[in-house]
C-alpha cells in the first residue's frame, strides 16, 4: 500500500508544540476581534467582479472547449486503462498515484487558480452527453448534493479505511463503478446531475468558489475577490454534509497516523481493521459535524435578519467559512505527500501498462526527497491551517454582519469563534503530533 501522506513530525517545528497550537489559535482569535472592531457591515455580499471579456472569448471558444474535453477523456482513458491493464503491483502502476495524488490533491490548486474548469474537462459529462436525449427526468426534490456526499464518502472510505485501497485492481473497480453510476445518472437526469451528484465535480466547484475567477449572471468570466465568490456557495444541507465530511475525514486521517492509534490497531485482523477504521472515520465526521452544527445554531440566540437564511438554516449560512479551513487542512496533510509521491506519478507514467516501456526516459530515476526540507514542510502545514482558519473567520464574520444587528454582531459569533479556535488547535495538533 502506498503511504498516503508524508507529514512532518513534532521535531520539525521551530517552537514547542504547545506554543505552536496556542499561537495558531491566538491568530484566529485576534483576527476575530480585529474584525469586530473595524468591520461592521457586510462587504462580500455586495461585491461584483470585473468582467474579463477577452478571457471569456478564449475560454468559451470552441477549440478551447474541444481541447479541454479531449484532455479530460484522454486522462480518463489512461487512468482506467492503466488501472485495469497495467501492473498489479501498486508501486509499479501509476493509476493509484494518479487517482489519490494527481486528481484528488491536484483538484485543489487547479480549481483555486483556474476557477470552475473541472466541469469543462469532466469526462463523465462528455460520455453522458454522447447519448442524445430529447428530455430528462426531474431530479427528486431535496436530493441536491447528497449523491455527491455519498460518492465522496465511498472514495474517502477507500482511501482511509480499506487496507487495499491503493491496489490497482481496487482502483480500477472503483473508477469504473463510479463512472458507470454517474454516466448512467447523467443520461437519465441530464447535465444537471453532475452539478449535484458527481462528487469530484461538486468538490471542484466548491473549491472554485474561492478562485479569483468566476462567472456573472451574463455568464461572463469575472475577476473578483475570492472571498466574495466564496459567499455565493449554495446554502444547502448537502453542502454542509459535504464539508463536514471533508473536515471529519481529514481529522481521522491525522488521528490514524498517531503512534497511539497505530499501536492499538496494528495487530487487528483484516476485518477488524475495516470495522475499527470505519467506526473511527464515522466518529471523527460526527464530532466535527456536531461541533460545527452546534456552533452555527448557537449563533441563532441573537435575532437573525428575516429572509437572510437559506434552506439549510444557520449551518448553511456559515458553511462557506469551512471551505478555506478544509483547503488549509488539505494543504497541511497533502503538501509534502503530493510533491514527493506526485513525482512517482511522472516516473510511472513512462510505463503505464506494465509493458516495460520507458516513454519519458525515466528508467533509473527516483523520487527526489532532498528538495524540500522538513522545516519548510512544517511551516507550510501550520501556515496553511492558520491562514485557512483566518479566512474562515473573515468569511463567517462578513456573513454574520449581514445576519445580525450591529450591536449583537460580536456576541452572536462567540460560539462560531470557539469552534474555529478548536478546529485550529485540533488541526495543528493532528498534523504535528506523532
Amino acid at each position, binding site marked *: 500500500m502506498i503511504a498516503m501522506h508524508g507529514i512532518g513530525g513534532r521535531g520539525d517545528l521551530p517552537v514547542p508544540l504547545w506554543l505552536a497550537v496556542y499561537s495558531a489559535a491566538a491568530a484566529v482569535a485576534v483576527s476575530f476581534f480585529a474584525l469586530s472592531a473595524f468591520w461592521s457591515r457586510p462587504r462580500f455580499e455586495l461585491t461584483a467582479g470585473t468582467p474579463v471579456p477577452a478571457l471569456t472569448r478564449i475560454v468559451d471558444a470552441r477549440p478551447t472547449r474541444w481541447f479541454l474535453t479531449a484532455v479530460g477523456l484522454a486522462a480518463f482513458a489512461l487512468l482506467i486503462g492503466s488501472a485495469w491493464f497495467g501492473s498489479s503491483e501498486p508501486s509499479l502502476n501509476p493509476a493509484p498515484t494518479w487517482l489519490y495524488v494527481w486528481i484528488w490533491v491536484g483538484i485543489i490548486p487547479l480549481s483555486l487558480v483556474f476557477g470552475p474548469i473541472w466541469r469543462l474537462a469532466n469526462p463523465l459529462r462528455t460520455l453522458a452527453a454522447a447519448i442524445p436525449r430529447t428530455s430528462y427526468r426531474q431530479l427528486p426534490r431535496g436530493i441536491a448534493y447528497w449523491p455527491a456526499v455519498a460518492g465522496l464518502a465511498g472514495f474517502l472510505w477507500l482511501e482511509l479505511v480499506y487496507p487495499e485501497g491503493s491496489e490497482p485492481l481496487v482502483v480500477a473497480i472503483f473508477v469504473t463503478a463510479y463512472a458507470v453510476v454517474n454516466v448512467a445518472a447523467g443520461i437519465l437526469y441530464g447535465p444537471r446531475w453532475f452539478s449535484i451528484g458527481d462528487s469530484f465535480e461538486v468538490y471542484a466547484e466548491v473549491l472554485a468558489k474561492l478562485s479569483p475567477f468566476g462567472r456573472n449572471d451574463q455568464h461572463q468570466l469575472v475577476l473578483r475577490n475570492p472571498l466574495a465568490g466564496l459567499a*455565493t456557495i449554495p446554502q*444547502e444541507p448537502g453542502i454542509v454534509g459535504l464539508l463536514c465530511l471533508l473536515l471529519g475525514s481529514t481529522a481521522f486521517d491525522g488521528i490514524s497516523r498517531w503512534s497511539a492509534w497505530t499501536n492499538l490497531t496494528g495487530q487487528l485482523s483484516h476485518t477488524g481493521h475495516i470495522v475499527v477504521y470505519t467506526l473511527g472515520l464515522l466518529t471523527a465526521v460526527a464530532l466535527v459535524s456536531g461541533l460545527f452544527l452546534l456552533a452555527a445554531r448557537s449563533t441563532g440566540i441573537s435575532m437573525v435578519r428575516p429572509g437572510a437564511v437559506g434552506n439549510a438554516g444557520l449551518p448553511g449560512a456559515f458553511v462557506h467559512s469551512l471551505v478555506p479551513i478544509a483547503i488549509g487542512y488539505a494543504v497541511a496533510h497533502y503538501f509534502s505527500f503530493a510533491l514527493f509521491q506526485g513525482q512517482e506519478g511522472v516516473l510511472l507514467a513512462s510505463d503505464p501498462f506494465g509493458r516495460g516501456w520507458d516513454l519519458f526516459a525515466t528508467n533509473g530515476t527516483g523520487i527526489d526527497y532532498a528538495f524540500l526540507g522538513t522545516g519548510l514542510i512544517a511551516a507550510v502545514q501550520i501556515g496553511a491551517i492558520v491562514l485557512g482558519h483566518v479566512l474562515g473567520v473573515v468569511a463567517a464574520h462578513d456573513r454574520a454582519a449581514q445576519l445580525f444587528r450591529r450591536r449583537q454582531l460580536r456576541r452572536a459569533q462567540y460560539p462560531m469563534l470557539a469552534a474555529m479556535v478548536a478546529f485550529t488547535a485540533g488541526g495543528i495538533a493532528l498534523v504535528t503530533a506523532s
Partner: protein
Amino acid sequence: MITLHMGGVPELAMFLGPILLIIAFLRIARRNEATAGDDEDDWDADLGDLTPTNGAEPASTDRGGAVLTTPGRSSSGAS
C-alpha cells in the same frame, strides 16, 4: 539572542502579544458598539432590509453560471 531565548522572552511575547491585542480590539469594538445609535442599525426587523451603502450594488452580480444552482438564497448559480 541566546540570552533572550534562555530567559524565555520570545516565548513570553508570543504568549502575551495576542492577549494584549485581543484586549485592545475588544475595547475598540465595545466603544464602537456603545457609540452606535439605534438609527445606525442596518436592517428593518419587519422587512429584513439591508440597505446598500457607499454606492454598493445589490447582491445580484457574480452569481451567474450553470453549476451549484439551488433553490436557496446565495444560490443562483455562481461559478
